[in-house]
């Protein structure tokens, strides 16, 4: 039982990591049409997330892999039940990954605007759909007695789940803006600060709204009392309001920490509201999947727990080091693109 709780928490942590890390790189993608003036500044925005978005996305892959290993029935029901959502998310993520590699591989303005547009669309689309999908875990979808999804596409969209999608988009846009205030200088920095200030209110308000609504759904549809979910929800609201205040004061570093905390606590609110269930069944509440009926056997959990305990700290260490290495603010002059970086800058043009 304790290992099941450990894996439920670890999966929540992985989702938190995904929200914090890919959250800001999605946010930067959303701001591409609004913040930069001219191609040089667009390059700075893409450079700010270019080295890290791929590593950030692995948090999602491992969250899914961990779900498969620790809670096979949850994985089976979720990934088949949310088929359409995940199909679209996959298309968005594939196109977005390619856009990072390809957008500057040609001089043609049409080529560049196409791939930048694709990046922007995917940066809006994927977080929206993740918001919908994660909200559905709590709101409940029709599950059969064997834990298999028995509903249709319409069951995935409720006022709550669509609101969750919009809230996640706004939260990530705000988080991406505070990230950019940390990574830019000069006139671009001033403009990102202004955008961050503009996004502070909607980001904080929708984030807070989502936290409150989540606690309401937890009591209404998941047989939870107000406490404990209200605790992370209240902290999430505090963090987001604090972020809004800090952004107005112009303290970039602290504002970014606050939006990151806001993202973590939003995930924490959702998972606290969910426990001990992992996927709520509605209308047949009795068919809900729980940490115990969806879990793998004890031996399998022990095996993956040992591996996770060894590797997770290591991953945190080297990913943290990456951010340390890439900490310098980007002015736009010494930007090196992936294509050009294939050859050391001193040795001339690539593939020569």
């Amino acid at each position: 039982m304790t290992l099941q709780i450990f894996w439920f928490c670890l999966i929540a942590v992985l989702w938190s990591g995904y929200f914090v890390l890919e959250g800001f790189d999605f946010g930067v993608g959303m701001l591409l049409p609004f913040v930069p003036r001219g191609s040089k500044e667009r390059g700075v925005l893409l450079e700010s997330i270019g080295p890290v978005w791929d590593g950030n996305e692995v948090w999602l892959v491992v969250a899914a892999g961990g779900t498969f290993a620790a809670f096979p029935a949850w994985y089976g029901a979720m990934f088949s039940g949310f088929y359409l959502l995940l199909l679209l998310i996959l298309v968005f993520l594939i196109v977005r990954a390619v856009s990072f590699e390809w957008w500057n591989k040609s001089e043609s303005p049409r080529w560049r605007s196409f791939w930048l547009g694709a990046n922007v669309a995917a940066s809006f689309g994927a977080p929206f759909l993740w918001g919908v999908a994660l909200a559905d875990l709590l709101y409940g979808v029709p599950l059969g007695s064997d834990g298999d999804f028995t509903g249709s596409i319409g069951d995935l969209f409720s006022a709550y789940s669509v609101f969750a999608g919009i809230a996640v988009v706004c939260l990530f846009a705000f988080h991406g803006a505070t990230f950019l205030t940390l990574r830019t200088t000069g006139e671009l920095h001033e403009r990102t600060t202004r955008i961050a200030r503009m996004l502070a209110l909607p980001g904080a308000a929708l984030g807070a709204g989502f936290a409150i609504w989540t606690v309401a759904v937890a009591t209404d549809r998941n047989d939870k009392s107000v406490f404990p979910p209200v605790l992370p929800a209240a902290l999430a609201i505090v963090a987001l309001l604090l972020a809004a205040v800090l952004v107005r004061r112009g303290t970039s570093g602290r504002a970014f920490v606050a939006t990151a905390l806001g993202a973590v606590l939003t995930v924490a609110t959702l998972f606290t509201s969910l426990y001990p269930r992992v996927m709520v069944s509605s209308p047949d509440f009795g068919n809900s999947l729980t940490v115990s009926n969806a879990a793998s056997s004890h031996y399998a959990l022990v095996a993956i727990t040992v591996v996770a305990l060894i590797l997770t700290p290591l991953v945190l260490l080297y990913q943290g080091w990456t951010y340390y290495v890439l900490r310098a603010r980007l002015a736009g002059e010494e930007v090196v693109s992936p294509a050009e970086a294939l050859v050391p800058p001193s040795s001339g043009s690539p593939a020569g």
Partner: protein
Amino acid sequence: MNWSVYSTYVGNVFGAPLAIEGLAAFFLEATFLGLWIFGWNRLSPRIHLATIWLVALGTWTSAFFILVANSWMQHPVGYKVVNGRAELTSVWQLVSSPFALWAFVHTILVGLTAASLVVLGVSCWHLARGRNQDLFIRGAKLALVVALPVSAANLWVGSHFGIYTTETQPMKIASTEAQWNTCQPCSFSLIQIGGFTQSDETPSFSIQIPDLLSFLATGSFNGKVVGINDSQKQEQRQFGRGNYIPPVEAVYWSMRIMAGLGTLIFLVAAVGAFLYWRKRLERARLYFWAAVWTIPLPFIAALAGWVLTEVGRQPWIVYGLLRTSDANSPSVSATWLGISLGIFALLYAALTVTDVVLLRRYADPDRPVPTEAAPSAVSY
């Protein structure tokens, strides 16, 4: 995504190597690749070099764990079935499964072969056009030094993997050879017309090499190979009524494409190495073009190999435990499967075409260099 019964049935065993792959390999690859690409001038040369080695370590680790997972579907070990689902009982048996180790070595050699042939082909393309001789002759020589041993080793490993498969999945090997009846010794058919269905077991035309199938399947020229019909009877006794014969024609041809191209690739590498040894590589214009046209072959061979191993396992998704037809998601309709398959096929086709065009352009030194930018900076 559309295999919920499968996920629930195997997650307990199959999920573990997958989760470990994510934690141990994907993080390593993704994080350090980003650091390598953007780390020039920010890291000391040694540490910068170390980052790409960590990426390589990540890809090897990734290959290992994904093949451990796949090999469990081919030849399940280290599990027991409890309440209608498989439960892991031994991590050690899972990761030390001979099937997984053969598959891992085979796949790594395929990867090295493909990579070295791309380097060889691109280098020879430049040499054929007389560009930058010094650089590209070095590239071609380095590629040959890798390609010759790995493609040779792969023929050996591949054939031993085949012998091991005969022991674990006799039906797959019998189908691969369209060998309906048990034989000893057995001749190998290079090509044949007809003879791929139960109602038409005898090909109307075939080219046979005596005793070779016995050697390939068992390691002895007088080995016994159990035919499809006997395997079918055996599996019916073991698993109950049903048709346990995979699509014979598909696996027959995929094996021949894989093995034929594998041999051809080895010959290309051997001829190149011979020219290198006789110091005639620099002027071997005909060879340059042969090497260019070899570039796609390892990819086609690898795809054919996957068709062979996956289609050859049918009707099972997990050999002997779960049938493919029982493993899908009841909630995902055939219509949605068709739509999603269509979307991904279109998306991947478009991306592949674009990728090939880009690779072609980037391999070409005559491509216009952005004029407004200094070599080190980018023209955004």
